[in-house]
C-alpha cells in the first residue's frame, strides 16, 4: 500500500488537501498513516497550549483612549492634532530638522559638495540630538519622581499617580516619533533605548490613576528591573558628547569668513 506523504497529511489536517475524501479513506485503512497523522496532531495540540496574555476587560476602552486623539490626523484634518500644545514641541523638531537641512544646504552651496553633505548631516544630527536629549531628560525626571513616590501616610490605601500617567502618555507620543526618526537616521543604538523606554512609558500610561502601595511598588520594581533609568542617563550623556562634537568649531567659522573675502 502506498502511504500518504507528510505534505498530504498536513494538507488533510489543515483542510486544504485536493483529495480530502481519498486521504480520509486511506487513513481508515492504514494504521501507519494514522500514527503519522497523530504525531502531527500532537505537535499542533502542544502549540495550542501556548498562552496569549489577557489584555484585560477594559482593553478596548484603552485602545480607544490611545487612538482617539490621533484619528483626526488620519482623516485628513491632521493639522488639528498638531496644533495640540503637547504635539507642538515634537512637530517643531521635525520642522527644524527640515529647515536646518535646507539652510545648511544654502549656506554651504558654493563649497565642495562632500562638505555640503557633511554639513547638512551635522546640522540634522545636532537638531535631533538636542531634541532627543530634552525628551530623555523629561522622561528621566518623570521616572525618578515615580520611583521615589511613596504613600503620604501609613494608613493611605491608594496613591494618586495621575500626573505621572498623563506625562507618560505625552512622552509616549513623542517617543514614538523620535524612535522612528532615529531608525530613519540609521541610529540603531538610540532607537533601541527609545524602544525600551517606550515599553516603560506604555506601562505607566496604562496604569490606573490611583494605585495601591503594592501596585506602586510593582511599577517601581519594573522601572528598576529594566535598568531603564541607567540606560537613559548613559544615552543622554552620549548625546551631550555628540552635541559638543557636532558644534561648529572656531576654526571652521574663521575659515568660512576667510573664504568670503
Amino acid at each position, binding site marked *: 500500500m502506498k502511504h500518504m506523504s*507528510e*505534505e498530504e497529511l*498536513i*494538507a488533510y*489536517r*489543515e483542510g*486544504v488537501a485536493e483529495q480530502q475524501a481519498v486521504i480520509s479513506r486511506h487513513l481508515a485503512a492504514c494504521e501507519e498513516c494514522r500514527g503519522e497523522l497523530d*504525531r*502531527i496532531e*500532537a*505537535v*499542533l495540540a*502542544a*502549540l*495550542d*497550549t*501556548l498562552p*496569549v*496574555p489577557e*489584555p484585560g476587560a477594559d*482593553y*478596548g*476602552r484603552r*485602545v*480607544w483612549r*490611545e*487612538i*482617539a486623539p*490621533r*484619528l483626526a490626523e*488620519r*482623516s485628513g484634518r491632521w493639522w488639528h492634532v498638531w496644533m495640540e500644545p503637547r504635539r507642538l514641541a515634537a512637530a517643531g523638531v521635525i520642522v527644524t530638522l527640515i529647515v536646518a537641512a535646507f539652510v545648511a544646504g544654502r549656506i554651504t552651496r558654493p563649497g565642495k559638495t562632500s562638505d555640503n553633505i557633511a554639513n547638512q548631516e551635522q546640522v540634522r544630527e545636532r537638531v535631533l540630538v538636542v531634541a532627543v536629549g530634552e525628551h530623555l531628560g523629561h522622561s528621566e525626571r518623570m521616572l525618578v519622581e515615580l520611583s521615589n513616590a511613596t504613600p503620604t501616610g501609613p494608613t493611605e490605601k491608594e496613591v494618586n499617580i495621575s500626573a505621572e500617567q498623563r506625562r507618560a502618555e505625552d512622552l509616549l507620543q513623542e517617543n514614538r516619533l523620535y524612535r522612528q526618526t532615529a*531608525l530613519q537616521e540609521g541610529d*540603531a*543604538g538610540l*532607537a*533601541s533605548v527609545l*524602544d525600551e523606554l*517606550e*515599553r516603560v512609558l*506604555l506601562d505607566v500610561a496604562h496604569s490606573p490613576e490611583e494605585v495601591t502601595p503594592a501596585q506602586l511598588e510593582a511599577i517601581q520594581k519594573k522601572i528598576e528591573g529594566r535598568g531603564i533609568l541607567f540606560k537613559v542617563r548613559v544615552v543622554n550623556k552620549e548625546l551631550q558628547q555628540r552635541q559638543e562634537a557636532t558644534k561648529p568649531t572656531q576654526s571652521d567659522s574663521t575659515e568660512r569668513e576667510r573664504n568670503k573675502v
Partner: protein
Amino acid sequence: MNRMQKSVESTQAILESDAIAVERTLAGDRDAYRVLVERHSHNVFRLAYRMTGNRHDAEEVVQEAFLRGYQKLRQFAARSNFGTWVYRIAANYAIDRMRQRQKEEARREAPRAEDRDGMENDPLNRVPDEAPTPERLTQSMELRKQMEQALAALSDAERTAFVMRHWEGCGIEEIAEVLKSSSNATKNTVFRAVQKLRRALQPFVETGAQARAMGTES
C-alpha cells in the same frame, strides 16, 4: 431556540451593528468608531500577539490597525465584515513590524560565526541530536520555550500563514491576500510552517508524552 440558532443570530446582530457603526463613522460621527474598536480589540490583539510574539508590539499593531482602518474606511464600504477586514490590516502591519524588528536586531547583533554558512538559520537544523531526559526538561516550561523559539524561527510569511490558518481559522484566499501570494503558494507556506514546527518540536512533545506516561504508571 437552540444554541446554534442563537449563535447565528448574535453574529448577524454584530454584523448589522458593525455596518451601522461604519455608516455613522463615514457620516462624520467619530464616536461611532469607538464601538468597532471596543468590540474587535481583543480579537485583533490575540492575532497580533501570536504573530509578533510580544505584548508591546502586539499593542502597537492593534492601535495602528484601527488607525489605518479609520483612514481607509471609505474603501471598506460594505465589503465582507469589519472584523475580518481590520484583522487583515492588522496582519499586514504585524508583518511590517516583524521585519522592522528583525532589521533593528540585525543592526544590534554582529553576525555570529555559525550563522555565516546559513546553517543556524534553518530551524530544521536546530532539532536536538537526542531528546533531553525528562529530568532535564522542567516539562511544560521547557516545551513552552521550545515552542516560542520554533515559532520565532519561522519566516514572516510562514508564521503569518500558520497563525491565520491554524489559530484563527482564516481561509487560504484570505491569507493569500495578506501575503500577496497565490493560493497554491499560500498552501505550501502553511505546509512548510507545520513541517518546520514538527521537526523542531516533535522530540520535545514525545519526551513530554513519555514522561507523563511514566508518571501515571508509577
